[in-house]
């Protein structure tokens, strides 16, 4: 069930209403059923996968919590990690692995074929695998107590607002919220609705509006000149942010209506003044996951400089592969790893100057945005060679701009992006002007109505799926 589908528009109010009408002791059970219904509406059989992952990690957690012998704890942890990552590998990377092996065998003129077939990736597997794995590791590290109630734990894994594309919640944040009963709070409820509305604006008015242009130029890159490809890359930069950021806001708002608080995944990422800050603001739940479970165990920055830089590169390469089974994602991850390495080196060699701060900051923001924009080309292109051709064309072939579905559509996309950036800059500058989030009920009500009217009037209702669902 997509957040931007008619089914969800019916599902959410019904779940919300029944949740608040039910006695508190039945609410978690009801939410669990709703979450499984939400997930299984894609393909019922995938419900078994999530159930398997839930059972394995729940039992492992309890076993690890009971054992005192380190060796046994480690064995249980290894078993839990192996079973979860095997599933992820099988569904997500098996086809890619097989293709790559066959390519190498072919290059070496060996007439052997590695048997593989492409399998349909279960939606959200990367997200809930990381969430359950983090839980087991946290129990192993004694950072949290194992959850003994299976129903509560199963709800933690499958909670529908964040199930298919995150935020990847930590047990210490989300699990306790299922342990006590919530009372209805109209302020929280309305705030949730407002957050959802802004999420829908980002998804429907920006991500889906620029999608046809992005698809047209990237899928037929040979037919387009550098100017059109640059605009395509610019639009994709906003498409991916608004698609995923919009999804995250809808997830946050949905949870908030039920009085749950999820991690905010994005914090004005395109106003970051360097790549390090960008990664503190972009997909924060994943970044912190990689920080805690990959980067720090590798040694983090508490080692010599070459090892520190290598740790960064490795972490970003793995993060790239997490996004998808394709070399383009790996290159995208490595590229960001290199940006991070350079950023660390530059900070060591030339500590940031304090003078002329605002001008310098603005220049840094633009520079970081450009770096991120060019890296997205690798993320969006189907092959590395394609990305190179696109980059080459951007710098060598200028010409008339391809207008896609027409100039009005392009201008409308710019208008919506302008509105988004106005809000982002306003928040970054700490300006105390609020519209939908105003404390004045009249202002917030009128603003919310106008925002919904704007969405109805200017959205692209194509019913596109969210990009991050494929990861």
């Amino acid at each position, binding site marked *: 069930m997509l957040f931007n589908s*008619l089914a969800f528009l019916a599902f959410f109010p019904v779940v919300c209403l029944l949740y608040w009408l039910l006695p508190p002791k039945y609410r978690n059970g009801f939410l669990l059923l709703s979450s499984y219904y939400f997930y299984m509406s894609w393909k019922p059989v995938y419900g078994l996968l999530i159930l398997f992952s839930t059972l394995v990690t729940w039992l492992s957690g309890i076993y690890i919590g009971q054992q005192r012998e380190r060796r046994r704890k480690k064995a249980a942890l290894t078993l839990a990690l192996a079973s979860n990552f095997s599933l992820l590998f099988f569904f997500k990377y098996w086809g890619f692995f097989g293709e790559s092996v066959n390519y190498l065998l072919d290059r070496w003129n060996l007439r052997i074929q590695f048997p593989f077939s492409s399998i349909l990736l279960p939606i959200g597997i990367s997200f809930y695998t990381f969430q359950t794995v983090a839980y087991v590791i946290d129990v192993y590290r004694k950072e949290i107590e194992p959850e003994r109630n299976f129903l509560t734990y199963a709800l933690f894994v499958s909670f529908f607002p964040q199930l298919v594309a995150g935020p990847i919640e930590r047990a210490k944040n989300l699990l306790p919220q299922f342990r006590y009963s919530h*009372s*209805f*709070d*109209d*302020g929280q*409820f*309305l705030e949730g*609705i407002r957050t959802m509305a802004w999420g829908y604006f980002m998804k429907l008015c920006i991500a889906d509006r620029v999608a046809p242009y992005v698809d047209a130029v990237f899928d*037929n890159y*040979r*037919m387009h*000149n550098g100017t059109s490809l640059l605009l395509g890359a610019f639009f994709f930069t906003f498409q991916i942010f608004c698609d995923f950021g919009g999804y995250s806001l809808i997830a946050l708002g949905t949870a908030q209506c039920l009085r749950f608080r999820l991690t905010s995944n994005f914090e004005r990422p395109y106003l970051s003044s360097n790549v390090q800050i960008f990664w503190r603001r972009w997909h924060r739940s994943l970044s912190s996951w990689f920080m805690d479970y990959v980067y720090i165990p590798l040694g983090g920055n508490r080692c010599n400089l070459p090892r520190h830089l290598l740790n960064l590169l490795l972490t970003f390469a793995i993060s790239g592969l997490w996004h998808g089974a394709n070399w383009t994602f790996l290159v995208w991850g490595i590229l960001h790893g290199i940006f991070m390495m350079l950023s660390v080196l530059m900070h060591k060699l030339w500590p940031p100057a304090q003078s002329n701060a605002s001008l310098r900051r603005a220049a840094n923001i633009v520079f970081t945005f450009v770096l991120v924009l060019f890296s997205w080309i690798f993320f969006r292109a189907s092959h590395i060679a394609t990305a190179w051709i696109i980059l080459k064309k951007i710098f060598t*072939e*200028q*010409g*008339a701009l*391809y207008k896609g*579905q*027409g*100039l*009005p*559509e392009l*201008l*409308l996309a710019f*208008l919506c992006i302008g509105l988004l950036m106005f809000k982002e800059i306003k928040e970054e500058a700490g300006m105390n002007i609020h519209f939908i989030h105003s404390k004045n*009920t009249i202002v*917030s*009500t*009128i603003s*919310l*109505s*106008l925002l*919904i*009217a704007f969405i*109805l*009037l*200017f*959205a692209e*209702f194509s019913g596109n799926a969210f990009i991050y669902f494929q990861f």
Partner: protein
Amino acid sequence: MQKTIQKHKAFRVLISVIALLALIDAGSSLLVNAYLRRHSLPGEYQKIEYLMKDAKEEMVIIGSSVAISSYIPQIIEDSLHISCFNGGCSSQYLPFFQCMIENLLRRYTPRYLVLVMRSEELAVDELGRLNLLSPFYRKGYPSIDHLLDKTYGKRNIFLYSNLYRYNTIGWRILLSSIRPSDEIGQKGFVPHNKPKFPPVLNDWSNYTSHYRQLNPIHEECFRKIVELCRQTGVELIVTIPPVYKKHTDHGRPFELLALEYLCRELTVPLFNDNQSPFFLSRPDLFYDDRHLNYGGAEIYTWMFVEEFRQWKEGQESRSTVIPGSMK
């Protein structure tokens, strides 16, 4: 008590939002209707409206953006001495064409209907930008109502909202008041500028179609169009303008063969210039791989006129499938 008031507050806010939305919705409808009393809808809506309300030409061309940029009605009028209108609409497919033709034929009977198709027209999955029809929903056009009800399914409840139905129209009206775009100024023909960097033929030497079956929805629409024209006595001509893609499969991919077969079966003349060697050797006549630029459109329209004449002269004795005359 306070909790009850708080609950009432959330309820009140939600009701206020709905009431305000209803007000904005009604207001937007009043505004658009007031505008429409003096002006026609902007952009492609203008063309749809013209086709449904005012068109009375002897030859009407129906198709997608390929049609818009390929046929210059003025040349057809001057050479064939019949009035002509190019009713092409961007990013549309057979369901839209069928709907337009049904509406057209309810009002008057043109002598010729030129259905401009792409080689893959019968096989594609998409249904096109049918939301372009939503301003005309429940405005007395049964075929539009039927098509939107069928494709939108339960989503058609949104069509009761004026804001949804007039999605992006306000914006287009605003832009057209600043920079007027006259879609029907050149009788529906909108030229594409010549690109600075024309496509390179080598890029397309290995183009292979991936279609292996026809889309039953599109096939049904095509059959329905043929039937409608037959019932009303309109002479239907199917054309496939040139593209800048060299097909493998000896230039006859599955979907093209299927279209030829269907035209033979239904005895509909097909002017197939899809793989015209002349155009394949002239990248300077294209805007991109499937759209001709102004120069290309001029040459192709003359080619069409010639093919049309040949077909008229030997209508009774000739084969129904007419290969491109200038190949």
